[in-house]
């Protein structure tokens, strides 16, 4: 318990250092696009597979849930609402945390162990600005785009299941889906994705920089990075949803 609190405090201090480094040093220009490519394009195939299968399941379960009520037609609405508002941002964030986040943690951790981070400092390059800033920009650029792609793939997969496996009327599906979501929902999805991207990047890099000794240290840092960032993303998701859709605040 105490060590958790101490960890949160250390993370806060690290964030302060990061902010200061970014303000003072600006960011290296060339690395940004390379990182964006690595985060976005390399994670895309996995994200496509996951989003497609989450969409198929959404359709199956929605169909099963609404069948006793005689409301199979509502499946389109259910899939659109659940997919666009909640699942697509969460799935994209979880996959990026698993793929790009773990990579960040393990790369930075290995650099730390091999004393390459110290070498950067010796060369008067601020490691926080040099290593974290491009990754941060890359993930902030990429995650909203990936979220929108995930929405599209999810809905297409759900549509395919509804038509070909469940034998529903395709026109009805599209009509109900269109009626239930609004363009602003896509924007909200992107806003959520930005939050998640910032969380994933800072937490993964934090664990990378605070990596323990040797191979176990790297393994542990990677492990903690993915668990912590996905848990925090889902917890934050509740508050963001409440803020955007709940109208409580």
């Amino acid at each position, binding site marked *: 318990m105490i060590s958790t609190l101490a960890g949160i405090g250390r993370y806060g201090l690290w964030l302060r250092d990061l902010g200061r480094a970014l303000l003072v040093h600006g960011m290296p220009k060339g690395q940004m696009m390379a990182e964006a490519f690595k985060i976005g394009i390399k994670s895309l195939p*996995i994200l496509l*597979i*996951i989003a497609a*299968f*989450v969409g*198929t*399941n959404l359709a*199956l*379960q929605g*169909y*099963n*849930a609404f069948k*006793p*009520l005689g409301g199979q037609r509502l499946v389109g*609405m*259910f899939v659109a*609402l*659940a997919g666009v*508002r*909640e699942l697509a941002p969460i799935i994209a964030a*979880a*996959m990026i945390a*698993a*793929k790009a986040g*773990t*990579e960040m*943690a*393990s*790369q930075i*951790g*290995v650099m730390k*162990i*091999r004393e390459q981070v110290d070498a950067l400092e010796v060369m008067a390059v601020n490691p926080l600005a040099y290593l974290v800033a491009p990754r941060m920009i890359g993930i902030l650029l990429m995650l909203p785009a990936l979220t929108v792609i995930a929405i599209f793939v999810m809905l297409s997969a759900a549509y395919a299941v509804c038509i070909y*496996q*469940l*034998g*529903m009327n395709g026109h009805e599906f599209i009509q109900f889906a269109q009626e239930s979501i609004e363009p602003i929902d896509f924007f909200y999805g992107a806003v959520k994705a930005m939050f998640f991207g910032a969380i994933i990047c800072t937490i993964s890099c934090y664990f990378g920089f605070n990596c323990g000794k*040797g*191979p*176990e*240290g*790297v*393994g*542990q840092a*990677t*492990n903690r990075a*993915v*668990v912590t960032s*996905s*848990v925090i993303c*889902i*917890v934050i*998701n*509740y508050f963001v*949803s*409440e803020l955007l*859709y*709940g109208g*409580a605040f």
Partner: protein
Amino acid sequence: MLNAITALGRFGRFSAGIAARMVRRPFFYAEIMSQVWTTTTRCLLPVTAVTFPFGMVMALQGLEIFRLFGAERMLASLISIATLREISPVLASVLVAAQGGSSCAAALGAMRIKEEIDATEVMAVDALKFHAVPRVIALTIACPLLNIAGSVAGVAGGYVTAVFLKGEPGGIFLAELWSFMGPTDLYGGIVKTTVFGLVIGLISCYHGYRASGGAAGVGKAVNDTVVHSVVAFITLNYFLTSALFGAAGQ
């Protein structure tokens, strides 16, 4: 492409080796039990910390939809069915892959790098049997246990939002909780997570056991474990859902 097929074949041989060692004596009961205990206790907090807020979000969004039809009392059955069938098995398995699977890959990878696995074999102990099999079995047992905890936490999260935050009547929530539930809903999640746990265990041990190239290799093994096992079990999930809950499109 060819590499992927080769890796798949190697994974198949590895799994066959594990399966053969699972049924043959000697069984390392103490090792298995301690692995089950570590995995379950380590994953318990992440799993419940994820399904609880997700239940809250489901209540939040579900309430808004059901209000359109004036059917707020349906909320509880939606939450219980969605949690038990899909949300909890999938989220719990994601977290088991992220926490249990990756720490298993990290541990085996570090052993491989430090040549502890070779040392085990030099002492005439079957390394695969002693190090990998207990971990696979432990993940297979721990995953359904954690799913039960995740389901309870998810429904509790829904209850908290619906009753305490949004002021729905609590009695109706509890009364409607089981109204659309069938026996498949209760054991379906368990069956699914047992399969997912086995998949996670096999993939994480495979990557950990084959780690190479120093500390970076361990990092890569952990990374591959999480990504591959999540992709594998989400793909399997579709087929299991079709098989268990039936959707022939009558």
